């Protein structure tokens, strides 16, 4: 208590209560100060984050071939093969951004809900897309749509309908889709005019791969479709019979007879030989393999890779008949035999994320 004209020995002292209170206040202030910057970042990043995720998604789709780059060949009914698909890029190759592969586009947009996706061998919506394309811990909703601009067709869509009221991130990309080459046509000639019993089709992969990927005929990664036509009976009236079909590496001598038969695989990807458009070739029953019109050979995509042939090889598909069918030693599987060549078509890809 202050008394005039007397020395106050307690002047300038602080109470303990005040010190404790002030300390707590300071600690709280520092705490708030540290927290504010974090709060602001969180606030600002909301819509920007969605746009960034949409942009990132579009970059993965349009400019990246995915991981592995030939994931379109994966058989999604096997969990191991599904798990092996790490990233769903649609690009044909990393050096050709904006050019999408038709097979990847078809597989990507062929989705189904989570219940039956494993059994049907399709991508699960939305789990697979979130895990292999959108990424991030937050379960983003998305809608990805692709529309062909050159050929009128309904748009391909995966994801949820776009909400009216929520803010979303958006990006539009202009792309081209590669339509692969169509069927390859070859003609045979009658027995009387020919001297060879074997029709050999040669896949010179190294030569085909000289063409840049967007315009390339690619038997390693795409379906191979061959039609052999113009069959006729010999002078005695007998129609040609297929006695054997082999696929071999060329030259055969170097690899020690690396040949396999036509029906070595039961499941996909396999080789399907159809005679006269209606009956399947059966190596076990040669009497049924009479050809009166055409032979079509379909190798499902990934067949050559499955039997271990790569892009450095040359492959011969040798079809043997019981009478002469040709004078040509090899039929070359190349741009000359294709009914139509690979062609690019414009499309627009839009991504919404919210």
């Amino acid at each position, binding site marked *: *208590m202050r008394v005039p004209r007397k020395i106050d020995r307690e002047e300038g002292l602080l109470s303990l209560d005040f010190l*404790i209170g002030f300390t*707590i*206040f300071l600690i709280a202030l520092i705490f708030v100060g540290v927290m504010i910057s974090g709060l602001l970042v969180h606030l600002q990043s909301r819509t920007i984050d969605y746009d960034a995720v949409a*942009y990132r998604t579009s970059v993965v789709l349009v400019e990246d071939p995915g991981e592995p780059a030939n994931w379109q060949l994966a058989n999604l009914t096997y969990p191991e093969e599904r798990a092996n698909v790490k990233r769903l890029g649609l690009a044909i190759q990393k050096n050709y951004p904006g050019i999408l592969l038709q097979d990847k586009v078809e597989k990507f947009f062929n989705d189904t809900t989570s219940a039956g996706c494993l059994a049907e061998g399709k991508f699960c919506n939305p789990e697979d897309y979130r895990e292999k394309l959108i990424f991030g811990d937050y379960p983003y909703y998305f809608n990805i749509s692709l529309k062909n601009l050159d050929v009128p067709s309904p748009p391909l869509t995966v994801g949820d309908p776009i909400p009216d009221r929520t803010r979303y991130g958006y990006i*539009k*990309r202009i792309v081209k889709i590669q339509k692969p080459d169509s069927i390859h046509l070859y003609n045979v000639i009658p027995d009387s005019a020919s001297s060879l019993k074997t029709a050999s089709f040669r896949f010179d992969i190294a030569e085909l791969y000289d063409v840049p990927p967007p315009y390339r005929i690619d038997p390693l990664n795409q379906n191979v479709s061959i039609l052999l036509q113009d069959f006729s009976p010999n002078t005695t009236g007998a129609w040609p019979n297929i006695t054997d079909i082999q696929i071999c590496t060329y030259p055969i001598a170097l690899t020690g007879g690396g040949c396999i038969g036509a029906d070595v695989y039961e499941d996909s990807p396999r080789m399907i030989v159809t005679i006269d458009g209606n009956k399947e070739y059966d190596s076990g029953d040669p009497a049924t393999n009479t050809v009166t019109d055409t032979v079509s050979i379909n190798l499902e995509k990934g067949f050559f890779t499955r039997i271990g042939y790569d892009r450095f090889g040359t492959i011969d598909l040798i079809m043997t008949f019981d009478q002469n069918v040709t004078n040509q030693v090899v039929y070359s599987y190349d741009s000359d035999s294709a009914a139509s060549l690979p062609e690019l078509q414009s499309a*627009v*890809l839009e991504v919404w994320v919210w």
Partner: protein
Amino acid sequence: MVNDDGQLYTIEGIAAALMIVVTAYLVVSTTTVLTQQDVHIIDLQLQQLGNDALAMMDTPNKYWDKSNLSIFIEGNKTNEFHNQFLAYLNAESGSGMITGNYEYNATIYYQNSTEINSYVFYESQEYYRENSVKVRRWVFLSDSSPLLPDLDFSVNRTVLLEVQLWRE
């Protein structure tokens, strides 16, 4: 002795601290801060779209074909260029709302025997001070173009197409 006047007690200190924290949180969480980055994202979308459109116009559909962009410049086909570029910009998949109304000016830069010259290839509207982006593409010309009579073909057959792009 110090009396109780003007003293802050422990409980009051805690209460005050709590009030400050709660107030700060409430204030910060109800305020929307508009940042500069929003504009950057829109710029990025426009720039990406312009780049994509030029890149796809410069990609031939078949192996031996010329790209459309080369054909348009070589043949002075301004209308075709305008139609295709605008078709790409306005392309929609149909799933969402329509965004549109683009304006752009296209200029070609090339080298003649002495200097770098420019030619206005297309001008859809005069540019004032709208928020615009510029996209560029080097275009290879295999034939001479009537547009660029003094293009030095022996030195350089590549011209720079620059498009200034904005939303109306």
